[in-house]
């Protein structure tokens, strides 16, 4: 199952991330894909806030250090594979350990390591639709993540989101 959300700005992307982050549990893995400047780090700022990380103003890009760890409701791992040349490098990095459910793990540029990723995860693809606007395609793979997509959809439609509907943004489309 897929849903499609729309973001009108970087702060909108953070808000969407926050909602999804609220629903994340220990062991969850979120894979993010999108070109340079799509807003992957912004979305993760939101995910971290939703997962209970405090002071997310400074949840910054770990492109250089590859992995940042934060203490939230559960440990929050922010991984960024931008600098990675090959899957072999990821193996040498010891990435597997982060994919074994010690916390919530969000991975930027996840498409660089297709064979290392677990089969079940939440896959989010961000596309540029304008200078500031983005579309987020969210796919759940495996039972846990199909449920999660379901929950994301209800949180977008659900109680208290009438304002969202009135503004006409982020209307989920079910594919």
């Amino acid at each position: 199952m897929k849903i499609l959300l729309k973001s009108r700005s970087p702060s909108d992307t953070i808000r969407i991330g926050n909602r999804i982050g609220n629903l994340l549990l220990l062991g969850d893995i979120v894979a993010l894909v999108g070109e340079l400047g799509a807003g992957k780090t912004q979305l993760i700022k939101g995910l971290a806030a939703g997962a209970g990380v405090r002071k997310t103003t400074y949840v910054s890009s770990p492109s250089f250090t590859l992995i940042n760890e934060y203490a939230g409701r559960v440990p929050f791992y922010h991984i960024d594979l931008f600098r990675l040349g090959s899957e072999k490098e990821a193996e040498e990095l010891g990435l597997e350990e982060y994919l074994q459910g010690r916390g919530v793990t969000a991975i930027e540029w996840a498409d660089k390591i297709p064979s290392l990723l677990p089969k079940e995860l939440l896959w989010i693809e961000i596309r540029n639709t304008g200078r500031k606007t983005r579309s987020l395609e969210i796919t759940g793979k495996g039972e846990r993540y199909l449920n999660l997509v379901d929950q994301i959809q209800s949180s977008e439609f659900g109680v208290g989101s009438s304002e969202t509907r009135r503004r006409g943004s982020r209307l989920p489309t079910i594919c």
Partner: protein
Amino acid sequence: MRILAIETSCDDTGAAVVLNGRKILSNIVSSQVSVHQRYGGVVPELASRRHIESIVPIVTEALERAKVTLRDIDGIAVTQGPGLVGSLLVGLSFAKSLSFVTGLPFVGINHIEAHLSAIFLEERSPKFPFIGLVVSGGHTSLFRVDGFGKFKRLGQTRDDAAGEAYDKVAKLLGLGYPGGPIIDELSRTGNPEAIRFPRPSLGKNSFDFSFSGLKTAVVNYVKAHPEPATGYPEDLIRDIVSSFQEAVVEVLVRKTLQAAQHEKLKRVVLSGGVAANSRLRQKMEEEAAEQRLKVFIPSPSLCSDNAAMVAVAGYEYLKQGIRSPLSLNAFSNLPL
């Protein structure tokens, strides 16, 4: 007092021997040519496994070049964080083992504090207090520094580090890695005013930085001007990177000088890999001179990651008898 220092926070394995926290007896970084020759080629240090392979030869070379043995060493300093945990652990475990075996005291050092200490390896070094800007591929932070171990963070990046923005723009334009030196070179002959990229300020009273919007602006510009079949004209590339660099440098200089004004300080210290950037050095010197501020910038080889700067901070702690326990752990985002 001779300090042996070890630095493995990111890509490079580094080891150094420094006398009394001021005089470099040796300062070896794995990206240096002699080490590559020893191992038959350039070795990227991305993975902790590479650090494991190179730490013994690098430390050995540092001792040899300094013409000392472990018996001449009085203490060990090692980077504890921030950085890549797998890499940090290699240096830290090595230092701890060495300390355990030799009985030498060891102390864990914050990588950012080490960058801020690099300037004391130069003949011309500042008195405290000063404003310190640490700007690299992983960090962009402003500090008020009142002494060794006495820091107040005034601001930091909320998204990308400045050096990271350089790398990403270079990659976007297919210029190679690392982006800093490449863009620095190309910009010399480009027009810095060709394109007006945004200068994110985050409000007058904030000393925080944000470079992801600037990066996105470059992406948007490149999209609006797609590559012709004949490839990008060289002039356009030079203008894009030159204009990008001007925006980054302007923000770094403006915030640093604002911080100096806010804290009523007359001295400014630059450090970190991006402090090797020629345009940043030039503009900081020029604008600081106008405001009658003194600027201190380490030579480029001491700006990028190295172990000698770790020894400077280590010396200051060890001479006071401050040492770390063998239970010390590495942290990816160790705060300063």
